[in-house]
């Protein structure tokens, strides 16, 4: 267990030190699951975009994203992330602010800015940033007893800022996701019971009063519209219905690759993004769907295991955050697509088209690898 070797101080450790280690079974499993999901995602995207533009664009994106995965996994020690956590948070906040201001100037909802050929959606990175910030905060504020609201207040404020910046874009789905990630991470700590009670009571009370304050019907509609920022609210019923029909008609074995959706999802505008799973379910049936479910669950549990085996608090908390990010994003999207959750416009990792999302996932998984490799020493 004791290693006399020292990691080099530079950002890029010399190559041979990584070859020295034996690739742990956990890492092997991660790479396998990730590989499968990426592969299935591409296959599905090919069908969803009918062999067209989105598939090739995503393929081009993958070169960058996979390189990011490798860099984060093998060349960035997790300690670097910990040291620069607040810097990263500040950077993301400023970019979010820029996007918000650009949006106000353009007079519409704006969630991304273009960096050359790639559209860059900072709210996606914000999800990972939240995980990093929570991890950093807890790691710097270790205490024996349980945390109270007061202890967590500075953290809550930072998360709150990020939440508001995203919420105002408007992008309620991603903002909510940030909250979910933070809460999941904190759920692994000892929290003062009184604090928990206060939070659990105040949230619904705040929500209800807010709802009644905004009593005017058109404003309520606006809030409901916030929940579906990308979709025409009038189409919502239709889209969900078509999604269910598509999924249901896949039955056990599916209609076969490229054989679905002629009648249905061809008319769903978001089948390469929000409704990507519907395509998969229609073409590959229950078998395909269940496989994807299993893969995501396995990935999440794997991340939790990585967290458990990690040695320092930062790595542990970050790994939990990554697990929450991947799992809940998957859960909400699939629930949406299956008609048991309101349509909030959250994409499905690996399957939905989107360079920022893919990049964020690859970076997240890369950091997971980095954590794994650090704890192996």
């Amino acid at each position, binding site marked *: 267990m004791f290693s006399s070797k020292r990691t080099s101080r530079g950002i890029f450790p010399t190559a041979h030190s990584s070859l020295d280690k034996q690739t742990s079974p956990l890492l092997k499993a991660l790479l396998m699951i990730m590989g499968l999901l990426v592969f299935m995602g591409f296959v599905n995207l090919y069908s969803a975009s009918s062999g067209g533009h989105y598939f090739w664009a995503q393929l081009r994106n993958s070169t960058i994203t996979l390189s990011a995965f490798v860099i984060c996994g093998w060349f960035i020690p997790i300690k670097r992330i910990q040291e620069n956590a607040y810097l990263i948070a500040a950077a993301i906040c400023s970019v979010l602010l820029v996007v918000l201001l650009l949006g106000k100037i353009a007079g519409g909802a704006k969630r991304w800015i273009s960096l050359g050929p790639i559209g860059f959606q900072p709210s996606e990175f914000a999800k990972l940033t939240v995980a990093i910030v929570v991890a950093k905060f807890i790691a710097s504020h270790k205490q024996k007893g349980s945390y109270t609201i007061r202890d967590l207040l500075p953290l809550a404020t930072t998360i709150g800022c990020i939440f508001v910046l995203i919420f105002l874009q408007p992008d309620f789905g991603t903002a909510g996701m940030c909250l979910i990630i933070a809460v999941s991470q904190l759920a692994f700590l000892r929290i003062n019971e009184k604090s928990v009670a206060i939070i659990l009571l105040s949230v619904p009370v705040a929500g209800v009063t807010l709802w009644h304050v905004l009593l005017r019907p058109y404003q309520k509609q606006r809030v409901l519209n916030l929940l579906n920022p990308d979709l025409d609210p009038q189409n919502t*019923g239709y889209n969900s219905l078509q999604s269910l029909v598509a999924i249901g008609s896949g039955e*056990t074995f599916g209609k076969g690759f490229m054989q679905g959706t002629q*009648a249905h999802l061809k008319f769903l505008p978001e089948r390469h993004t929000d409704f990507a799973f519907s395509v998969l379910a229609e073409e590959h049936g229950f078998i395909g769907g269940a496989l994807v479910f299993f893969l995501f*669950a396995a990935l999440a549990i794997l991340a939790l295991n990585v967290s458990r085996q990690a040695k320092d608090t930062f790595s542990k908390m970050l790994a939990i955050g990554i697990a929450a990010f991947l799992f809940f994003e998957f859960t909400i999207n699939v*629930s949406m697509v299956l008609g048991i959750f309101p349509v909030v416009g959250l994409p499905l990792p690996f399957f939905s088209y989107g360079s920022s999302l893919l990049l964020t996932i690859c970076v997240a998984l890369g950091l997971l690898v980095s954590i794994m490799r650090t704890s192996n020493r």
Partner: protein
Amino acid sequence: MKRLFEQDQPIVDKRYLIGSLIITLITCGLLTRLWYVQIYKGDFYSKISQRNRIRRIEIPAPRGKIYDRHGELILGNRPYFDLVYIPQYIKDKETTFQILSNLLNTSTEQFEKRLRKGRGRPKFLPITLKKNLSLHELSVIESNKVLLPGIEVRVAPRREYPEKIPPHLIGYLREIDSKSLKRLNKKDDSSPYYQGDLIGKQGLEAKYEKYLRGKRGYELIQVDAYGRQTSSLNDWNFPKEPAIPGADIVLTLDWELQKAVTSYFSGKQGAIVVLDPNNGEILAAVSAPGFNPKTMQTGVSFDEWRRLTQNPFKPFLDKTTGGEFPPGSIYKPVVAMAALEEGIITPKTTFNCPGHFTLGRETFYCHNRGGHGKVDLRKAMMNSCDTYFYQIGVELGVDKIARYASSLGLGKRLGVNLNMERPGLVPTSTWKKLIHKHKWTAGDTPNISIGQGYNLLTPMQMANLYSTIANNGKTWKPRIIKRITNHIGETLLEGIPEQIQKEKIISDSNLALMRDILKDVVMHPKGTGKKAAVEGHSVAGKTGSVQVVSLKKNRNQTDVSIKWKEHAIFGAFSPVENAEIAIAIVSQNDSVGGGGRAAAPIAAKIIKKYWDLKQQRAQKKANSELAKIKREKSNVLK
């Protein structure tokens, strides 16, 4: 070593197990739902997917109605039938178009053109191929429905235009163009416009589009193989959203009066405005020539469009606020009141009118070349003696006149929030320097004093001027909206009287004097406005005849082509004290004659109509009250 390390960790180890359990539970829950949808209901969904049985119907919203002040309907809706094409369910476009072409006697190119317009939209949204099907066409389509999968007839409420509708005031509808569509949808996407939607252009339809429009609803229905609706299965809770009708607008307009004014003005061009001097409400507004909003809605032919846009009398212009005219002699009260206030004259001051007025080396002529002799203010106004006003105008100077004119709301926009409004022009020496780059010379003033020269007023301003004289100096903002209520009866907008000019610089006594003098213009047998007199009611007013081209005044009017004929103008109010209506009439290039001959009689008709209507309505109300009392009495007796 490990254990010591872990004691520093704030993370509770047990939570990992809980976390994994939660993950597993949620995943199993999702699996169950997936199983339910794919295995349990799989067969059901499969059938539906095979037969494409879901149709989405847009429910169009009827536009808000427009009423007059008494609750009479001016503009309502009526159902029209449109032929629509739904790309998602079309089997063979070419065949379908061929069949349609045969049935409806329309070329397939027409259909292709309409199809191109609807490109890029989701395929379940219908594209309109033909609007306003006749009943015959409707029955032909319905009976051949079997041959036309993907072709349907949708009902849409459209405007029903009564005769004599004021087209500029009400406005018309046209299909929205793609630029406006993008712009409006970007601003507010809660109720987006679709290609093919109608949008208000001009007048109330445009200005209050947001209110009148309503919001379309939708419903999902199940249909059979031919597209006919079948009863929906109980398993579905088809989402349905009813259409929300647009908000209704109640105008200040009096529809009966409006129609009467339109007919009194038929054959003429120009504008008439009737206001309520007590609060600025617009009772009638006519601008001629106009256009037919019905043809604008269905589509106007190229020739018709060309004819309309090239007509020199500008049928699309709302002349009540958008037309600027030299006011002519109806401006004289402004100059008179200015002179009285400045102390240059008293009611008893007299001047001699020999038929002309000399200023330096220039001579200005009175309309009566023979001269009026010795005239005081009253006689000058009654006879519309120009010399008198040249005299006092020159003594006042242009800037003083301008000051009083401004205080009466002239020379700037009144803020009538409807169609394009011009500000008119009240010249000042500064203005001339700025715009014409020359100094104001004394020789410019005489023309101003009789309302010619650089002066320009809109008919709305003219009516407002007389309204201000009538109500003792209050300049109201003319208003057309009384109230806007939504479909559940809530008031969204309430029109309130608004005064434009707060400062009053003309004394009450001078205003009262002016009213009395203007009364003589109409009611004295020698007044130029005698043709505006109405039996049984007092009327005050002033005539104006604006020369378009300088003609010798005594020359015969009939041998001059129409575009050189004078504008006949008249401003009036009735009764003289506590006036209830104020009128301005501008009849462009009137072939009948000037203000006294052509415009005054129209004013008389309008004023008579107003009083007749008032009496009729009072009588009607009294009758119904009486009937009510009788009924109640008989009920009690029972």
